[in-house]
């Protein structure tokens, strides 16, 4: 297992409320790492520490280190837009940008000036294909993105995120707003994408975690209770709290 992201002594406070307590762990490259735990345990906070989204809320205090490829993303002088370009986010509910389907995918390429010397049209098609949306939208690329169904919107958001060529994909319960078929579709995409991307996702659905995870982080009340390869954690959980959670006690 090769480490991609390393978290060291991470503590996060919202005001006087401590959301993450002394987190230290490593996240493997090109695997699906699932963060699970009951609601309010700090899963999303941990996820958002990886693309520096925590600092968007006021009164958040972050101590400790998050290293991506050995580089501390919280070090002074680090360009936050570079971090977010490297670690794409698939949100809980899809939020397409207020523009056409085509422009949604082209948006990231344009702001990062990545379209120079490239065929923008071909790039848009490429990422829509990876997200499994191309066949459904190829005849209406210039329709408003809000005309898509919610499941299609989530795949559009995936295509949009992939277009800026991230190394890491963060998923914040990315299927929770979707119908079962759309959710299955997204899960399949994630399984395909782990060949090339490091995927970290939060879920509160135990069965989804079992289906997708290569590596598991189990959190409870802001602490990491247990983390390790999925087989080990699911088959032989060492901590009583993990055993209780896996057997559905909370």
């Amino acid at each position, binding site marked *: 297992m090769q480490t991609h992201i390393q978290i060291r002594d991470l503590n996060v406070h919202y005001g006087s409320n401590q959301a993450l307590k002394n987190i230290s762990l490593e996240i493997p490259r090109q695997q699906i790492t699932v963060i699970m735990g009951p609601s309010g345990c700090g899963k999303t906070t941990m996820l958002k520490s990886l693309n520096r*989204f925590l600092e968007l809320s006021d009164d958040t205090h972050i101590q400790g280190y998050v290293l991506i490829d050995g580089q501390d993303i919280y070090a002074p002088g680090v360009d936050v*837009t570079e971090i*977010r370009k*490297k670690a794409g*986010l698939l*949100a809980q509910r899809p939020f*397409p940008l207020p523009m056409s389907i085509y422009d949604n995918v082209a948006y990231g390429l344009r*702001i990062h000036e990545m379209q120079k010397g490239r065929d923008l049209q071909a790039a848009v098609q490429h990422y829509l294909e990876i997200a499994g949306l191309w066949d459904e939208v190829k005849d209406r690329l210039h329709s408003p993105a809000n005309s898509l169904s919610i499941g299609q919107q989530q795949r559009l958001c995936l295509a949009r995120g992939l277009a*800026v060529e991230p190394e890491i994909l963060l998923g914040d319960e990315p299927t929770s707003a979707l119908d079962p078929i759309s959710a299955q579709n997204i899960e399949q995409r994630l399984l395909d994408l782990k060949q090339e991307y490091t995927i970290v996702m939060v879920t509160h659905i135990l069965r989804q975690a079992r289906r997708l995870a290569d590596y598991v982080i189990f959190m409870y009340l802001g602490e990491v209770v247990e983390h390790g390869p999925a087989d080990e954690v699911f088959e032989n959980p060492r901590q009583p709290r993990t055993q209780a959670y896996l057997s559905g006690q909370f």
Partner: protein
Amino acid sequence: MKKSHIEEGILKILMLLSFGLVAGSLGFILLTVLIKGLPALNLAMLTQTPKGGYYLGKEGGILNAIIGSLYLAGGATLLALLLGLPMALYLETYVGRARWGSLVRLSLDVLWGIPSIVYGAFGFTLMLALGMRASLLGGILVLALLELPIMTRAMDEVIRMMPADLEQASLALGATRLETALRVVTRQMLPGILTAVLLAFGRGIGDAASVLFTAGYTDRIPTSLLQPTASLPLAVFFQLSTPFPEVQQRAYAAALVLTAMILCVSLGSRWLSARMKRYTIK
């Protein structure tokens, strides 16, 4: 009958009454202006400037006031937009709900409430101190001040309705706050911003008191920013205060022109904003 049904019935009647009051007032105003103004309205009114003896009932028109009003309100709206949009974006993107932001909003609300004659007097004093004469420029500046709080607060409210997740969707792609503001926030808000701009334009073009001292009044169409200019509200005011019935009727014709212009602007903006809403995210 159950008590809740009776309550609902009473409320429905009250709502119908208030709707009738609003629609009735609008209809009454339009009808008055139409009945009194239409007979005096002719092509000459719209295409000519006042000739000698116009204010005694002789020939001429109010083209000077029509063009003057468009110049004044157009210039002021543009100026207010140039200041107001960055201010509204700044308020939302950088200041948010922090204390400094509420102070700015409070100031804008107070400015919104200030009567336009006070703006006029303020502008007049300022122009006296600067040695400026009543002019198109003076009128535009004071009207822009009058429109600024209206436009900025209207845009601020629109921008505040912006779903935070939409901004985050852009930030998550590595966009800066400025790129997000310019390419996403502005686009999502465009229909609302347009409404805010036209609200301010409507307020500006209909205001008499603020241009009374600052823009002056003249029978000529201004050819430079430093010349005085006529305006429709003042054309109504001056003509209505003459003792001659023909001239008073022309005041109603001028009011009709002004009302028609505002109606066109507001209907046009509704059509445009409905078209642009196609892309916005709910």
